[in-house]
């Protein structure tokens, strides 16, 4: 796909995120906007997938969202890719919706293979799915996305240790390095030191994507990561993103982690992101 077409999806996805969160006056726009380019690239350019959803994902690449609170971007990307009708984005967080506040399999939403929201669990699940692929002789890959603050959860480090110890080399885990969490910057809440050094010390191959909101940089990073799979080591991408990217007043702050824009703020935000594929 041409980069411009991907950029159009990015712009529309940002609008979807903002409108979903605004409508119900709840949800997490900041991290969603920061990971929009990554998820648009992954689902539209990188992964081998079948939008006629089957839970087992045999002979498909799989994706697990560990930081489930960025559900708005996940839902928008899934629906725009064709997993379910875009009109259903209208039901985000409403009673009887398949689009729960945090993603779940419980309501049968196509494209979701695990519930997430309680942080730190996604990598373990991905390891199980990756090992099942190996047992099944399925050579496709497993991708994950985690928040940087999420790495404060200890279960991650059990999984990170296991992945290299057991040579799970069909896994590409991406860490959204936006440096922010609910209570402030990651450095003020709980300094984690060098995440790169930690992953390397745990035996992973680590790639850095410094421009984590640049489609070409993301695609190059994912391409390189893919070329490094199958070499008896798990692969990690440290994706440096800007929380709230694409909306000037949501950038350079953690304030929009879990806050919805007002009517005026929505209008301002939408004016910065043109409608490209038609609003839902």
């Amino acid at each position, binding site marked *: 796909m041409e980069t411009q077409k991907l950029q159009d999806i990015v712009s529309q996805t940002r609008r979807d995120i903002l409108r979903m969160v605004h409508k119900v006056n709840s949800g997490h726009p900041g991290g969603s906007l920061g990971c929009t380019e990554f998820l648009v690239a992954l689902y539209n350019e990188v992964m081998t997938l079948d939008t006629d959803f089957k839970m087992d994902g045999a002979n498909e690449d799989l994706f697990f969202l560990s930081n489930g609170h960025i559900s708005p971007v996940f839902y928008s990307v899934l629906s725009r890719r064709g997993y379910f009708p875009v009109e259903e984005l209208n039901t985000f967080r409403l009673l009887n919706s398949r689009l729960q506040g945090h993603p779940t399999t419980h309501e049968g939403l196509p494209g979701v*293979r695990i*519930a997430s929201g309680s942080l730190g669990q996604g990598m373990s699940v991905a390891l199980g799915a990756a090992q099942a692929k190996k047992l*099944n002789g399925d050579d496709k890959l497993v991708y994950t996305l985690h928040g940087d603050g999420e790495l404060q959860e200890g279960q991650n480090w059990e999984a990170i240790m296991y992945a290299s110890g057991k040579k799970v080399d069909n896994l590409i885990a991406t860490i959204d390095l936006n440096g922010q969490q609910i209570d402030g910057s990651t450095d003020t809440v709980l300094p984690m030191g060098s995440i790169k050094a930690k992953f390397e010390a745990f035996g992973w191959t680590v790639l850095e994507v410094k421009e984590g909101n640049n489609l070409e940089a993301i695609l190059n990073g994912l391409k390189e990561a893919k070329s490094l799979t199958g070499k008896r080591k798990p692969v990690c991408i440290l994706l440096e993103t800007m929380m709230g990217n694409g909306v000037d007043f949501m950038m350079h702050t953690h304030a929009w982690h879990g806050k919805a824009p007002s009517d005026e703020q929505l209008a301002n935000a939408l004016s910065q992101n043109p409608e490209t594929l038609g609003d839902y």
Partner: protein
Amino acid sequence: MKEYTNQGSKDTRSGFGAGLTELGRTNPNVVALCADLIGSLKMQDFIDENPERFFQIGIAEANMMGIAAGLTIGGKIPFTGTFANFSTGRVYDQIRQSIAYSDKNVKICASHAGLTLGEDGATHQILEDLGLMKMLPGMTVINTCDYNQTKAATIAIADYEGPVYLRFGRPVVANFTAPDQKFEVGKAVHLQEGTDVTIIATGHLVWEALEACKELQVKGISAEVINIHTIKPLDEKAILESVAKTGCVVTAEEHNFLGGLGESVARTLTLNNPKPQEFIATNDTFGESATPAQLMDKYGLNAVAIVKACEKVIKRK
């Protein structure tokens, strides 16, 4: 009164190991995971025969539950093995979100449950696990009574779709159920017919209930004994039919009275046919170090205690 013979005492965890070994031969989708307790869980035979289908996770139970959930996505039927404490309380949120809420077909197999773990003491003797697991929507909860039943249950749950908590124990206990039994999830087993009192027991207390039944007969009391191996879903029909006949009930379990089998039975009776009930269970307490027999005696979880409870509940009719 039916005669039940101890065919030779064995530990229930060895029944799990034997069942898992058989599944390894008959069901190619069964995989096993362990958190550094292969010997305690009796998993070595399965591992020897199916090394590629075994995952040694290390001392990382949270990771084990997540990996098990992920394995189901590729069509596997994972059996996790560790102590009951580390299978439940330690990993409650992982089970809740990644397994129960995500509808994953994981079999959580938990050994060393309850006081009969013995000398290791309260850090390892969980008495709250049935309650924890019972409260999770969609979770099936099973507590088997002897080697043969544990083996049969292990084999049966592989074909039972959905998350299952299978609880068993460490000590060598009487093995008295049929080796060729068919295990039906959610179906109570009538062990003795009686008219004066119904004893509803689970796990290690089932043999004690049979012993109590013999003692009660000497005293001229006719006790009905029901083995409730499945605590959820509960066989309410079997309970209500029996209590309609006897008019009172004693529940018996190696668990806190809060959250256990007794509370499930009490709810069933309250909603349908309120009758006097006595609870053989621990009384909102932690355990301690001692031999299993000493502990079961001190905390009132044996045939002697069941007999007393039956006499008391009959007077309350």
